[in-house]
């Protein structure tokens, strides 16, 4: 893999250097455009510095608070950053509606996950320092992923976020399954990143640039035919990113990793890095207008939805079940990628937001319920929760309803926008597959609801009162899911606006590319 890194750099570095040399040192406003990343990094380092000074027993609360303040500060600085639209650092980073949207999203996800971790770390006896530090650093990577418009920087950002999550997945040190999860994630993840890098290298070979805009111009200006290499490059990059968003046939890792990783981290992994990877995918596919993407995405979307839902039907472990559900949702999201660029982008953006709200919430409930050593994560353990803990069960039901896609929840509108984007783009086949899959999906979410309300509780499962932090996290998720379900207008308008920016003057939909996907 190192070899590959080297080769990629040796190709693209000269171009970068040439850019850097011809420009002046970056002006101060450039730093404003990466302000959230800076804030998060500083707080991450602060945690690392403070950690050794604190008594390990009591550090959970204070470190968590620092991390939370860090994310809140980063949210504020994102609002600040939004006032400085434009590119920075020699065209490497761009602040626009699109990147601001994803900044808000991933930082908010991190904040809620940190909140829901307060109790968890104490109960599971996990050291807080590295844990919160890594979440913040990982968030830096995710933020950069959404604003980078330079493939090399995208790669670096991807690695920052991935390496943090590899480590976070293994934080339940005493459990073999957690180590397995971490190792599996790391090995397969590195492999996938190598694919992405290879794709970057080939794209550089085909177009002579690693800048998204330059690639788009090189591919679609003049009447020259698109070089075959660019098709291969698209396919490779897609493979790398498809792994990150766990879309079929690169989804095999997800259930094992989700099962072993700490529950709040699964909440993070299944939403944050995924949203950021979708952001990259949107950039690569739509902003760079990658050639030959249509069938690639079509097949992957259809496969992902179907496999995710069908496999979820037979799961007995709630974490695994939600893992497959997250695969299925990645499939629904991919449908948007096959649609017309503008419609697809806004639908996908809304979907990532809605999915984040409901899934982080669902995992916050699972986190609280799992108890010491994550003992209670099977479906059987949820029996009678509706009786023993009505509020918790009701909120979980709400999240599950959103995942099913029942109206007045964010999940419904998310699915709705994807469906209408697909139908407006005349993707009737994909739309039908989506509809059928949602129907299948209803069944396994319903199994959990049935367990909670229609089975007698098993005596031995303890139900502890929800602590303040977790309650706050869950409340935030409920409110956001409800907000997106009742008044989706504002978020959607924002997404539509930034989608228009992103794909402006490249709007030519490329629906009939001659490239047909073959199984890689």
């Amino acid at each position, binding site marked *: 893999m190192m070899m590959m890194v080297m080769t990629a750099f040796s190709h693209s570095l000269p171009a970068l250097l040439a850019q850097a040399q011809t420009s002046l040192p970056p002006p101060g406003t450039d730093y404003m455009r990466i302000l959230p990343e800076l804030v998060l990094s500083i707080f991450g380092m602060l945690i690392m510095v403070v950690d050794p000074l604190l008594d390990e027993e009591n550090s959970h609360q204070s470190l968590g608070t620092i991390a939370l303040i860090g994310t809140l500060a980063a949210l504020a600085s994102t609002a600040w950053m939004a006032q400085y639209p434009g590119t920075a650092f020699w065209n490497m980073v761009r602040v626009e509606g699109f990147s601001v949207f994803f900044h808000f999203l991933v930082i908010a996800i991190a904040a809620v996950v940190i909140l829901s971790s307060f109790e968890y770390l104490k109960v599971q006896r996990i050291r807080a320092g590295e844990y919160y530090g890594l979440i913040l650093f990982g968030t830096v990577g995710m933020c950069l992923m959404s604003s980078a418009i330079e493939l090399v920087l995208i790669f670096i950002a991807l690695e920052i976020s991935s390496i943090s999550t590899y480590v976070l997945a293994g934080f339940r040190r005493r459990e073999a399954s957690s180590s397995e999860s971490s190792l599996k994630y790391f090995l397969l993840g590195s492999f996938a990143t190598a694919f992405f890098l290879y794709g970057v290298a080939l794209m550089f070979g085909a177009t002579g640039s690693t800048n998204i805009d330059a690639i788009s111009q090189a591919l679609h200006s003049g009447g020259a035919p698109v070089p075959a290499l660019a098709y291969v490059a698209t396919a490779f990059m897609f493979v790398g990113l498809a792994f990150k968003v766990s879309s079929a046939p690169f989804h095999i890792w997800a259930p094992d990793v989700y099962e072993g990783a700490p529950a709040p981290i699964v909440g993070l992994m299944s939403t944050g890095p995924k949203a950021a990877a979708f952001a990259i995918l949107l950039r690569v596919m739509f902003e760079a207008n990658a050639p030959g993407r249509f069938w690639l995405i079509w097949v992957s979307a259809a496969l992902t939805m179907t496999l995710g839902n069908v496999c979820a039907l037979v799961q007995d472990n709630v974490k695994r079940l939600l893992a497959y559900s997250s695969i299925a949702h990645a499939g629904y999201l991919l449908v948007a990628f096959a649609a017309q660029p503008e419609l697809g982008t806004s639908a996908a953006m809304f979907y990532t937001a809605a999915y984040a709200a409901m899934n982080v919430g669902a995992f916050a409930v699972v986190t609280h319920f799992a108890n010491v050593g994550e003992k209670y994560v099977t479906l059987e353990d949820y029996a009678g929760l509706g009786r023993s803990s009505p509020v918790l069960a009701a909120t979980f039901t709400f999240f599950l309803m959103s995942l099913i896609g029942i109206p007045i929840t964010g999940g419904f509108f998310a699915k709705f926008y994807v469906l*209408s984007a697909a139908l407006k783009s005349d993707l009737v086949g994909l739309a039908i597959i989506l509809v*059928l899959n949602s129907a299948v999906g209803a069944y396994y979410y319903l199994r959990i609801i*049935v367990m909670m309300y229609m089975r007698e509780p098993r005596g031995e499962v303890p139900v502890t009162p929800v602590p303040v932090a977790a309650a706050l996290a869950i409340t935030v998720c409920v409110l956001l899911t409800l907000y997106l379900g009742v008044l989706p207008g504002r978020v959607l308008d924002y997404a539509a606006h930034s989608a228009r920016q992103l794909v402006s003057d490249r709007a030519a939909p490329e629906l009939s590319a001659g490239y047909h996907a073959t199984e890689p």
Partner: protein
Amino acid sequence: MESLSPIILSLVTFIPAVGGLLILLIPRRDRDIKLFALVISLLAFVASLHLPVHLHRELGAFKFEIDKVWITSPNIHYHMGIDGISVWLVVLTTFLTPLCVLISWHSIHERVKEFFILLLILETALIGVFTALDLFLFYFFWEATLIPMALLIGMYGHGRKVYAAVKFFLFTMIGSMFMLAALVWLYTKTGSFDFVVIQNAIRSGSVPGFEQASLWLFLGFFIAFAVKVPLFPFHTWLPDAHVEAPTAGSVLLAGVLLKMGTYGLLRFDVGLFPAQAHRNAPWVMVLALIGIIYGALVSLVQPNMKKLIAYSSISHLGFVVLGIFSFTAAGLNGAVFIMLAHGVATGGLFMLAGILYERRHTYEISEFGGLATPMPKYATFFLVTVLASVGLPLLNGFIGEFLVLTGAFQARPIYGVLGATGVIWSACYLLWMYQRVFFGKVKHDVNNALPDLNLREKAALWPIAVAALVMGVAPLVWLGAIDPAVQAALAPFTQLASKVVGQ
């Protein structure tokens, strides 16, 4: 009173849900909760009476309309309104819910709070289905009925309740997915979810690609509604759901939920796609006839009283579909009237079966016999309800069936002939059941000691009996409002017919 018009529909729709949420605040004293639920549901009933009283009977116009922008993108409106068809379904819902509260007074022992919350939320969702004129809003209420009903069956039912609840949920959910797809298609082409706007767009032929897609759109809506009706062969969820549901659940399920399907067929499937409806009418009517006869025959052999009533619903709802797709004024009037009559009569039958279940904890017909001796009042109420359901003249079942059969004869005589056998069958299975349960000697000694109706049960049953009689004696009160709406719904068909004649 006119000042009430813009908000009355929202009021009627949301009084129960708000009341349901208020129950959350009441401490867990069961008696208070029950009383409060009863008051709320009665309040909704009284408020809903405003609707038929002030409904101006003009041709095909929606009344009490309220149209506010809810979400700008997509273009979703909070658009509600009723006409002569939906107004009675709203009243039927508000009429049955207080009775459901009464009938559940003692049969629900645990998780009482949740039960009444679910019941009241369900009522709001049901009323919403009948009042929504924005297709999106309609879909929202449609789906919203699903969860409370499934929970009512799954949490408070008996026997294989979980199986029944899941089956009910999945059948409806899968069906409505097709409707969602069709609905989104319509939205993408017309830019609106408004029923009236879409209807006008289709009629004026300004929807691109409509000709090619109309069959699929028709089918998309049709599947969702046919599952709900339930039309043969989508009916298999119904017996399970009915038998396992708690009494109140069965009453609302048979009384109102099934009408969502027939109402949907009439309002949306036929209303939006008249040409396709006309083209597909023959096989739909055949399915309806199969439902009528099949449902009746299966009822005949049921040893379980509740299952018998459940299958009889399939048979009766077959009449409704037959009437709708006959596209005659008589047929449609009759169909709407049967919806109401069946809601009252079958709702009553389920309540009666529930009363018996509270005493004996079984629905098996063979467990009873000779009940007329220990429970004469109960037997009388049962007889009235059975006769109403059978379609005895002067009770409400007769009018609807008569009109539907008239319509079916007009459409094609053989349909009328086959449909008419359903009336005979229903007399067979219901009266035979009545005979086995009530007449003769008391077969089991336990039944000798069964107490007759108490005051609360009588309070729940009297309205049913009175409604059955009044609707049978003075059907014009209802039909007077239904007919203009039906005529409006039929307008495109007279054009279609004249086209055919013209050719």
